[in-house]
């Protein structure tokens, strides 16, 4: 039995590059609107809930806040502070977070460690879209919040909130592991207050 390769180069790289460029330009054009008010939920009235549903809520929120698996999305410098956080000294495995899923489908949390460029933005958006609900985002570092030190550059997205909705912002360039852990605790607080069953 002979194996005959039909052709070696099954793609035209020019076409693929062209397509990628179009996707980036389209996303860039779409992301120029002002960011919506992210504190809106604060003014919302808390819905009332029955006793039974409240208890179920509590169990679900407990599970969700204590089992945050993060996805691999570590573009730049902050990644090393994330690694430090994951490593033995600061150790996020204490919170059951040492499972870092490579596949976004199985992850709950995106810790956006690093500068986001426009070229990377469609990929981050795609990772976010691929994650299954409920999903959370922690914008880690100054670049993740506003573009930070690179804000004035031509290639840098001024903050992840232009691309994906962000739950917790952790400032610093890069934030210390303690700061990241605090951010994670804040996110856990936020999750444990969520109402899964709304009246």
């Amino acid at each position: 039995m002979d194996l005959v390769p039909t052709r070696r180069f099954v793609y035209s790289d020019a076409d693929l590059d062209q397509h990628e460029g179009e996707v980036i330009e389209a996303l860039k054009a779409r992301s120029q609107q002002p960011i919506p008010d992210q504190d809106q939920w604060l003014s919302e009235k808390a819905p009332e809930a029955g006793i039974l549903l409240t208890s179920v809520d509590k169990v679900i929120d407990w599970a969700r806040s204590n089992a945050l698996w993060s996805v691999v999305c570590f573009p730049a410098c902050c990644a090393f502070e994330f690694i430090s956080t994951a490593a033995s000294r600061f150790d996020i495995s204490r919170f059951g977070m040492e499972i870092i899923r490579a596949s976004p489908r199985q992850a709950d949390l995106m810790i956006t460690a690093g500068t986001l460029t426009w070229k990377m933005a469609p990929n981050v958006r795609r990772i976010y879209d691929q994650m299954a609900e409920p999903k959370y985002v922690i914008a880690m570092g100054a670049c993740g919040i506003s573009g930070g030190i690179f804000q004035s550059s031509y290639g840098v997205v001024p903050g992840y909130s232009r691309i994906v909705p962000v739950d917790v912002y952790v400032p610093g360039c890069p934030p210390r592991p303690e700061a990241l852990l605090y951010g994670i605790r804040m996110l856990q607080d936020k999750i444990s207050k969520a109402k899964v069953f709304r009246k």
Partner: protein
Amino acid sequence: MVTFDLVFPAWQFKGLPPDWPGGFWWHFIVFSIIILAFVLTLVIMFIWFERRTLGRMQARMGPNRVGPFGLLQAMADAIKVMLKEDIVPNGADKLVHLLAPLVAFVPVLMVFAVMPFQDGAALVNLNIGVLYVMAVSSISTLGIFMAGWGSNNKYTLISAMRDVASVVSYEIPVVLSLAGIVLLAGSLSLNDIVRSQAQSVPFVLLQPLGFIVFFLGGMAEINRSPFDLLEADSEIVAGFHTEYSGMKFALFYLAEYAEALVLSTLVATFFLGGWGGPLLPPWLWLIVKSWAVFFVLVWIRATVPRVRIDQLMTFSWKFLFPLALLNLVVTAVEVVAWPEALPVLLIPVNIAVGAVLVILLSRNFKPGGSQVEA
């Protein structure tokens, strides 16, 4: 001495099914529940245990915030995963995608049907137990292949191909290594195998070579590190379950650890004397022994890098397969020549033969693999 038998008389399933009121049905129902409880509890405990042990081996704490010693961590994970959104990717084969986790998980449960928790205490004491175990346990592969094929993703496809290749080649040494045990015990029934170990010594002493082949081959079959090619994080993202989320992913995750549990219990049953042991009740002995085997699995996972696919195949065909064959020949000769030979005589002979063979073969073993002219 108050034994567990007095406290929990219900654990004593000495009699055969017709002795029971309701005949076979009660027996089946009770044992199905026992098996489900056994598998689910132990799997959750194993997950917790693995994470804690890995943490310790990696100089960190491991989960310790949720519940005492982090015991509830796996529970929290389970609840969360089950409540997550279920995604079926665009372009996936929906039926195959849906069935794959079930096909992967159910056979693992089915293996426990013949697992003796005590003398005669199994869902069914098949007289072809070994054959059944081997046959059923390979069905999981089909589920993994279905997942890889049905997900419409290149990474999952590569993973599925790797899985089929590895399982097909590892099935042979694994089965051959069990043949030696069957010869010694004179039966294919798992309960008889354990019973004959209880009468003499655990087969790990009589069959050191078979133990090595079965353990390594089993590790490759259940895709534990260093043979975890299908979930090679650094290469093919999450392998065959890249596109799975929610409940379906939970089933895969469960199946993965249930397979580790199967291997641990099988090794304990075939080689470490199964339920046999002093003082403790038999079912606890089984759990303790499986736990010890699982600890070795975790230890290996924390220690060694991963092999490559061609090295995996080479290892099976050029190392484990000859070893298993030679082991079978040696055992057969021994069984024919000294049918009544004392373990005292057989143990040193077999260990010596095993050591010599392993050393000889590993000297000449080349994992191979080189650059291909493209």
